[in-house]
């Protein structure tokens, strides 16, 4: 547990708010990085790990992306050539599947659900806690935002992140709104010399604390089935309380933190170009948010598989194309689809390069991060639940090796998630339900 996590801000602030003091001095957080910039001087601990998910819809053309050899000396195939500059910073997983266990395949839902939550439900109106929430519980406490979700296709429902069974976390679709949420007037620059807590924020914090205090009372009277939902509401109250508490403290200096320049609103929408443009802006905001200590968990979606993503001038959506574009007899794949998929892969590369561009002493932000990239179908054309393309990027603070291609033919895709959880320090022996329950990690990757 880091120094930041150990501190109960609510208790500290309650003390402050009980009196008339306006200036808050919290020496324990006034720690600085060591001379090489990668650890907190006060504790000697490494900078905390971060985790992100990156979802893209509609998979890749089976048989055209899987490297032919495994290990760390493989060659990238045609559809993934774009990964060449980041090859040693990522891992590629092939051959794995999501099991339906006799349930109806909720196309474009079940596969992503399986990889995001470890379970596959009977209907499309059921969901459960996602991997980012599980990992966030381990690494994300004490930050201003428990996690940040973005959707690049103009759809707030693009995210696969959820805290429980009762609704998904909405995706922010406007980069300008996200800028203001993270770096707007409430942002406290960790590297600024002066710090004065805002008395208005103190009042807002005390309002949330008051609401939080009614949890126990209300929980006693609610029907059993609604207890969990109410609990989720109160967890959100606590998250917001925590956010305001963070804003009231002088943060630890973070030399890697660069506040991005503000930018103009762009038209968000479902065109591939718009999605890639939104992704560029969001990726910059999220990497800066992590480097500035605002969050340690983020979720990026390029758009739902069964969404509206499409190329300008094309009469079919990308989704419709995957089903209706003829397979080119010479090339053996759907050409238009392959080009769109390659563009999406290029966006993933940009995210990885963006994380690697943020220097933190002699390391980079990517070094302490793991990004988990997954998709809804192995091959979208036939709604295939097999041979999923899955990637990871970054080593989570040296806990996971990179540069490998792993083929785990027939295994549950949840093995990747379980391996990441282990790397992030989550103490669990398994993840997932029924046939999607993984118990084996990829030990060859764990350090």
């Amino acid at each position, binding site marked *: 547990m880091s120094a930041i996590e150990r501190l109960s801000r609510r208790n500290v602030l309650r003390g402050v708010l009980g009196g*008339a003091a306006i200036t808050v001095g919290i020496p324990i957080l006034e720690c600085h990085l060591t001379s090489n910039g990668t650890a907190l001087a006060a504790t000697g601990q490494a900078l905390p790990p971060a985790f992100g998910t990156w979802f893209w819809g509609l998979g890749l053309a089976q048989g055209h992306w899987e490297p032919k050899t495994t290990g760390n000396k493989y060659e990238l195939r045609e559809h993934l050539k774009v990964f060449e500059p980041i090859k040693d910073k990522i891992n590629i997983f092939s051959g794995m599947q999501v099991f339906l266990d006799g349930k*109806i395949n909720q*196309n474009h839902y079940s596969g992503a659900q399986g990889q995001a939550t470890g379970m596959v439900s009977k209907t499309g*109106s059921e969901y459960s806690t996602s991997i980012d929430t599980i990992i966030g519980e381990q690494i994300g406490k004490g930050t201003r935002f*428990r996690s940040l979700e973005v959707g690049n296709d*103009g759809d*707030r*429902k693009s995210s696969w992140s959820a*805290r*429980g*069974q*009762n*609704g*998904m*976390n*909405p995706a922010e679709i406007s980069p300008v*709104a996200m800028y203001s949420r993270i770096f707007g007037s409430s942002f406290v620059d960790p590297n600024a010399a002066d710090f004065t807590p805002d008395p*208005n924020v*103190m*009042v*807002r914090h005390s*309002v*949330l604390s*008051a*609401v939080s205090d*009614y949890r126990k*009372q*209300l929980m006693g*009277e*609610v*029907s059993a*089935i*609604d207890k969990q*939902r*109410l609990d*989720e*509401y109160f*967890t*959100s*109250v606590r998250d*917001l309380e925590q*956010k305001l508490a963070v804003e009231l403290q002088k943060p630890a200096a973070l030399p890697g933190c660069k506040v991005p320049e503000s930018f103009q609103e762009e038209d968000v*929408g*479902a065109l591939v170009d718009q999605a890639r443009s939104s992704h560029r802006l969001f990726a910059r905001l999220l990497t800066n948010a992590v480097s500035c200590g605002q969050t340690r968990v983020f979720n990026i979606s390029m758009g739902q598989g069964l*969404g*509206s993503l499409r190329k300008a*001038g*094309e*009469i*079919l*959506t990308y989704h*419709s194309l995957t*089903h*209706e574009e*003829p397979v080119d007899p010479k090339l053996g794949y759907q050409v238009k689809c392959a080009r769109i998929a390659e563009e999406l892969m290029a966006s993933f590369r940009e995210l990885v390069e963006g994380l690697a561009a943020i220097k933190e002493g002699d390391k980079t932000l990517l070094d302490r991060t793991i990004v988990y990239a997954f998709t809804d179908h192995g091959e979208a*054309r*036939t*709604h*295939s*639940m097999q041979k999923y393309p899955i990637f990871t990027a970054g080593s989570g603070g040296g806990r996971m090796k990179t540069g490998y291609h792993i083929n785990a033919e027939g295994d549950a895709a949840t093995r990747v998630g379980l391996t990441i959880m282990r790397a992030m320090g989550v103490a669990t022996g398994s993840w997932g339900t029924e046939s999607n329950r993984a118990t084996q990690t990829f030990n060859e990757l764990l350090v």
Partner: protein
Amino acid sequence: MLRTSKFKAFVAGVTLSASAAFGAMAAPEITFVRITPEQYQRSVHDIFGAGIKLDANAVETGFRDQGLLAVGARKLAMTSAGLEQFESLGQQVALQVVDPRRAATLVHCTPKAADAPDAACSEQFIKRTGLLLYRRPLTGEETNALVARANDAATKLKNFNAGVAASLVQMMVAPEFLFRIERSEPDPKKPGAMRLDPYSVASRLSFFIWDSTPDSELLAAAESGKLNSEKGLSQQIDRMVSSPRAEFGLRAYFSDMLGFDGFATLSKDTNLFPKFTKNAYDDAREQTLRTLVDQLLERNKDYRELFTTRETFLTPALAALYGVPLPRSQEMGGATPWVAYTFPANDNHVGLLTHASFLALHSHPGKSSPTLRGKALRENILCQRVPPPPGNVDFTLINDVSNPALKTVRQRLTAHSTSPACAGCHKITDPIGLSFEKFDSIGEFRTNENGIPIDVTGDLSGKKFDGIAQLAQIIKDDPAVTSCLINRVFSYGTARAPNADERKWLAEIQTDLRAKGVLWRDVVRRVASNPDFYTVPAPAAAEPQKAELQQ
């Protein structure tokens, strides 16, 4: 926050006195339904005035259950991102309420000093506003806590109004406001059963009929016990369905039933369809809602006639889309760009299903989709479920326009449907969906596809038709149209599917109204007058809606 002590004492009393008579009785409990962003916004406007500026549309998405977002709302919690936005909205609203220009009318009292707390004045505000926000009177405990919050904040910020604002934000982020809290009490008429308490009845009615918070009169009826009597309930329902606010309820219901949330992510190719811009989406949705309000509320017409009526409202943009002339005065712009318009008898636009809101919403960005349109008609209008497509299907035939034998969508879909795995569902969707083929992806009329005249014949439930006008007549006469409306209205109002017993009386209403006329106010009145509308069945008792597919 709750009237805990009073509530618990009440529960204990009932248990002691009634347990012997009622046998194993369900315990009074609280359930809750999250309010929608629209309901949040409307509540704020109803309580503090329409001048309060806020944009709640960006907050929290819902999900559809039993065909309705309203039913999904019973399963929704509140995410951190959502609460963050609601808190921010609460701040925005509070700042405007205590703004000196409004405070005189909204805070109702003048503090002793502007820079210090005034408990008596804040208490007045809190009690009055709390009643409307929580949809029930505050308990003494709640009032005291909120007054203490106001005093504390006013002291810290040296500003009375800031104190009032803090207490207001506290109420606006509380579960009592962000959720419709439903409290149950033993039903004296049904031993062992539970019903909603009077304030919960008021909320259910109000969000059902007005899509907003109860007004003072409704809350007064709850307080006086009038809502417990059949006569009192009936008076309130009559008042509410006759109120101009009933328009909001009707708009909210049909937006949900017709899946208009889909407009948020609708994307048409503006190179192919330069007329169909984002503004046109808004017009398309509004055209349908205006037509519904006019037909069902203003003119009290039969719901079934919506499928054949040629009466509607158009803007210049829609007139261009439909290829009809509008009076020039309208194009020059007046107070509203909307004008009442009746399509000529020989026009191809007949009824709700030829509105761009239906045709464009259920199409691809650049081409029509008989399958999506057929599915939407089955699921949204007839309450029938179309199963999802199976895995491992090759769809490429549908798009192969280079094959000389497959020039129209009908020909390509027929080829596709020869696959046994696909045939089952496509038989359900396509024969009706293909009848819309003379309307392209945005609802513009056409007669040919790739040089071949479009065939719009088909059959629905064994009844053959040629073209949309005949299909519209068949739909109008289909009993499923009425039963779907009545069952969905019940589900919408109660946020759950009806159980087997409830389906029986709902079917009786359907038979009765089919004979007398399916009038919106009667549907609402009849559904909301049944005591079952206010019962609280155990969750397991609610049966999932059965698929009613015949094929």
